[in-house]
């Protein structure tokens, strides 16, 4: 029976993804003159093309790179969300933690001058520390004062955004730039490039390490076990001797470290500077990744790669067809709705049975 359940869950998730993609296609077909081409671009765009015309060459390596870059950020955010969701804490603070992480890297990058590895490492550490602290605030408030974490994290997101703008406008902004943004970071504070022709950087390796660490933390340490117990039943965990207050506070703080790193990836890896409106809403994208992965870090890797693929494909689709990339948000919303619908399949079954029995009744009556 247990083996059966293990098998059913991935199939269910796969079915949900396929249904969501199918609905996405129907929506695309409604507005597009060339829905098949658009959807082909969405689903195959990020793949590099291997060409044999002038000898062996790989084309579109930048698209492949975009996929990895996008996935790196999403996996970090997905890990951040997984940790809090595992403890059943609805912290929505990743957005603010990410923004402040990026902000701190800019402060270190532009206001200090240090040699290469030290400068970069210090900036990364700053992003992680601020993420930890910004996550610790709602964690402590929830643990010791029962302050609802949804409202507190949403409010801390607003404060973080204002802090971001405040420092950017008044302190970090480069007046010579034609837009609201900082000067480019010095090379000593930029993440080293991994694949030439793309922006895939050291952060992709750090992300892989983060996946392993998060998996180890959640599956092989007492903290991970306490996290799981807390998520299953707080009263029971308390009865079992878990210091639930500490675990609640720490779950949100540790989650913040990863969101802070995601912010550092945006500034030190992708943009190599700070700009206004860094990436509104991106902090919420970790949720779909965590849900697809059922809060398991190993599956977060896969789910993040999948969702990153979809987002990159959507950008390519937007450039090469008459469909905007926002279709991927619609697909994402459908995935969340269907994946969290525990009673979806029983409900459909019941409905079909009802229809069938009605049909039979009609046949019998006729």
């Amino acid at each position: 029976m247990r083996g059966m359940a293990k098998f059913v869950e991935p199939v269910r998730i796969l079915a949900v993804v396929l249904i969501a993609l199918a609905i996405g296609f129907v929506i695309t077909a409604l507005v597009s003159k060339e829905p098949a081409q658009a959807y082909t671009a969405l689903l195959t765009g990020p793949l590099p093309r291997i060409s044999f015309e002038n000898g062996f060459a790989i084309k579109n390596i930048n698209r492949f790179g975009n996929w990895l870059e996008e996935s790196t950020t999403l996996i970090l955010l997905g890990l951040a969300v997984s940790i809090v969701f595992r403890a059943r804490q609805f912290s929505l603070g990743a957005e603010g933690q990410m923004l402040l992480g990026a902000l701190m890297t800019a402060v270190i990058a532009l206001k200090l001058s240090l040699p290469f590895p030290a400068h970069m490492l210090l900036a990364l550490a700053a992003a992680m520390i601020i993420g930890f602290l910004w996550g610790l605030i709602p964690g402590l408030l929830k643990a010791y004062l029962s302050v609802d974490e949804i409202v507190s994290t949403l409010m801390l997101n607003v404060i973080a955004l204002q802090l971001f703008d405040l420092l950017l406008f008044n302190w970090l902004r480069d007046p010579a730039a034609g837009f609201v943004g900082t000067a480019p970071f010095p090379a000593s504070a930029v993440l080293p490039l991994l694949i030439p022709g793309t922006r895939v950087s050291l952060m992709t390796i750090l992300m892989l390490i983060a996946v392993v660490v998060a998996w180890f933390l959640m599956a092989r340490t007492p903290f991970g076990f306490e996290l799981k117990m807390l998520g299953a039943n707080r009263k029971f965990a308390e009865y079992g001797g878990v210091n639930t207050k500490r675990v609640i506070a720490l779950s949100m703080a540790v989650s913040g470290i990863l969101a802070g790193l995601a912010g550092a990836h945006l500034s030190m890896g992708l943009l190599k500077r700070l700009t206004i409106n860094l990436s509104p809403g991106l902090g919420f994208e970790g949720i779909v990744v965590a849900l697809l992965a059922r809060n398991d870090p190993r599956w977060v890797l896969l789910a993040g790669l999948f969702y990153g693929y979809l987002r990159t494909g959507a950008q390519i689709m937007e450039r090469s067809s008459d469909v905007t990339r926002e279709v991927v948000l619609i697909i994402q919303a459908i995935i969340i709705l269907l994946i969290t619908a525990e009673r979806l399949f029983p409900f459909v079954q019941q409905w079909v049975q009802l229809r069938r029995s009605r049909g039979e009744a009609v046949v019998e009556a006729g």
Partner: protein
Amino acid sequence: MSLEVVLQSIFSAAFIATVIRVATPLILPAMGGLLSDLGGVINIALEGIMLAAAFTGVIVSGFAPQWFPGAPAWSYPWLGALAGVLVGMAMGWLIAFFHLELKTDIILTGLAMNILASGATVFLMFSFTGDKGSTSTLASARLPSLQIPFVNNVPVLGTLLNGENGTGYNIMSYLAFVLVVVIWIFLYRTPAGVHLRATGEMPDAAQSVGIDIRRVRYQALVASGFCAALGGLYLSMGYLSIFQANMTAGRGFIALAVIFLGNRHPIGALIAALIFGTASALGTRLGTMAIPPQIVEMIPPAVTIAALIIYNIRRRARINAAARRFQEQATS
């Protein structure tokens, strides 16, 4: 730029008029969120519902001449508003359906609705207008403002009652204040209001006395969709007369905070919304002076967190006191 100038600009009728305008899109969704929250079903999707309604109102009123050739021109804004409200209610119903029938987590369902709205509005805006940023190419309608007659010549009163331009406030601003009163009466003076609060406070007890809690929650979520939609319509058909991508800019989330800051009471929420509105209006004013507007904008969220802390400390003290009394009684 002395303190005097600042104070003068704050304690002016024009400033109060601005506050009312800025607070309207917070009061309306907060009233909706309050209804569902008191019914025990928190609605995180206020933001998305506002956005979807704002978009629908602009599109339907803008295309009304083509879609409803027989309709008179004065009806265009109302057709848009009607469509927007229907979309908002439909979204509220969908949340209820997914949560109550399919047993989804209501918070995740709400988040999914927000994501759906922010994606679908841009997606559809592009296919309707060919633009992804705003509907500025579409001539959409504005909901009327109500001008109170005869007071414009009275110095302070004219500005206070009809705004700086003397054209009056948008009808949605009046509706916001009316709604606060209506919801207060509903919650505390009608049986249905008692049923709603009972459903939220103690669902099992409510059910045991024959309240259909499922139906109450359906109604609460649809009603919250209705109110949030009004807030969204105000943004795109009153405050501005276009739709912009993500124009709600977090107001739906702030409305949630407003509910908590207002101690889950309609009058409290109204006051909280006015506090947020004041800070926002103040931020814009001070922006022209030496104080960065971001600092002022940080105050309301910080106040919200502080209010939540104080509320919980007091609640804990109350519980402890009750426990102590109980123990004393038990031992004596």
